[in-house]
């Protein structure tokens, strides 16, 4: 009975969905880390109008649900569904990473800035070579948990009909009626997410420990 569910065709069907999940998550993470770092730096350094605007962006997006941004990009901005999804995730995650980066930068002792500047580094060089590397080391746990959240939260995209792995599994469940069969599909989907996210967290944890040890 369960054998009818665990077939190569079904597994392939689900993994195709998971490929889309990872694709959306990966692009969104790259873009959000890039933009988030820029916003975090601006928020941390600029006390003027630019810093204020970035602050408003971060606060508004951070305090509204991801699903709202998924709906907004889907119905207000006209573009391909998957791209709209990536846009929604980038808008949302950029704000969260911006806040993480701001916190990370603020945790670095002011003396580091003064020392670097006094050695003839300019602001950009100080950030690039002195401040950000130290800050990123502190930010790794927060960033990691955000990346895992992105992978998990792509499942919200099923709300606008994007067939990532959650969507695929819902479609698959429609073909089966026996409780054990449906339950098996739930287990498989949960395991797919679990394995990838758990491995990610293990790798990052090991890496983080290595970095902290090097720091000492």
């Amino acid at each position, binding site marked *: 009975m369960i054998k009818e569910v665990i077939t190569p065709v079904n597994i392939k069907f689900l993994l195709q969905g998971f490929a889309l999940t990872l694709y959306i998550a990966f692009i969104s993470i790259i873009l959000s880390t890039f933009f988030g770092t820029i916003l975090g730096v601006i928020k941390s350094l600029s006390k003027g109008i630019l810093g204020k605007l970035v602050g408003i962006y971060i606060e508004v997006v951070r305090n509204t649900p*991801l699903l709202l941004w998924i*709906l907004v990009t889907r119905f*207000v901005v006209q573009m391909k569904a998957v791209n709209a999804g990536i846009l929604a995730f980038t808008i949302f995650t950029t704000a969260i990473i911006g806040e993480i980066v701001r916190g990370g930068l603020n945790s670095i002792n002011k003396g580091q800035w003064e020392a670097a500047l006094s050695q003839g580094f300019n602001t950009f060089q100080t950030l690039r070579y002195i401040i950000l590397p130290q800050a990123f080391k502190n930010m790794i746990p927060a960033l990691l948990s955000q990346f895992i959240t992105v992978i*998990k939260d792509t499942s919200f995209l099923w709300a606008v009909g994007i067939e990532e792995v959650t969507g695929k599994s819902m479609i698959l469940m429609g073909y089966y009626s026996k409780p054990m069969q449906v339950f098996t599909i739930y287990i498989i989907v949960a395991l797919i997410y679990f394995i990838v996210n758990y491995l990610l967290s293990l790798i990052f944890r090991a890496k983080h420990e290595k970095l902290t040890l090097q720091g000492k």
Partner: protein
Amino acid sequence: MTGPFAWFKWEALFKDWAIFKDGFLTTLTVSILGLALALILGIFFGVLSVSKIKIFKFISRVYVEFIQNTPLVIQAIFLYNGLPLIANIVLPVKTIGVLAVGIYHGAYIAEVVRAGIMSINKGQLEAALSQGFNYWEAMRYIILPQARIVMLPPLTNQAVNLVKNTSVLAMIAGGDLMYRTDSWANEKLYYGPAYVLTGLLYLIICLPLATLAKRLEKVNFNNINRTEDEEMNIGCDKEATA
């Protein structure tokens, strides 16, 4: 004027204000009850995770890792679609909302509580136990009150995330704010005003909490710096007297 934010669309929105109010109240109720459940689960499993008994630790790890590494959406849909089919348990949709966000954020809060307890000197627990407190009493009266200061900022952040995540209800016809907005906007095709209003309503709940979290973080940050300074001063005094 027929832009996405045309005036007549706003008028239609305010005429149907009751729908949004209803959704807002549902979101608020589910958030409060969900947070209560998350706190109970979080404290329980957080305390278990620092227990010396291996099996308790293991149970707590399984809960935290399994829930944190699988999507809330899957968990919610399982409660909504899976449970009736598999175990013949049909729950009201708001109860599902409370259970889903409560269990999900309970796993995160368990980690916060664990970190909070770890931040307290081990001698405190030993001292309490030697004074005749049992394990849970020692946690309740000695350890957790001290850990509260460390735990409050991340707990407040979790509360914000919990409120936002109640929107998962929209995917199972839960009647929350996001669901009401989505169905209203799809019916009338007036997306602009609906999304702006919904965003504002979520901000009303989340922004004060987020601001509070930030303020608490700042207080902690200053406290830590101050204690470090004080320690340094004490060190200097010693040198001076020596």
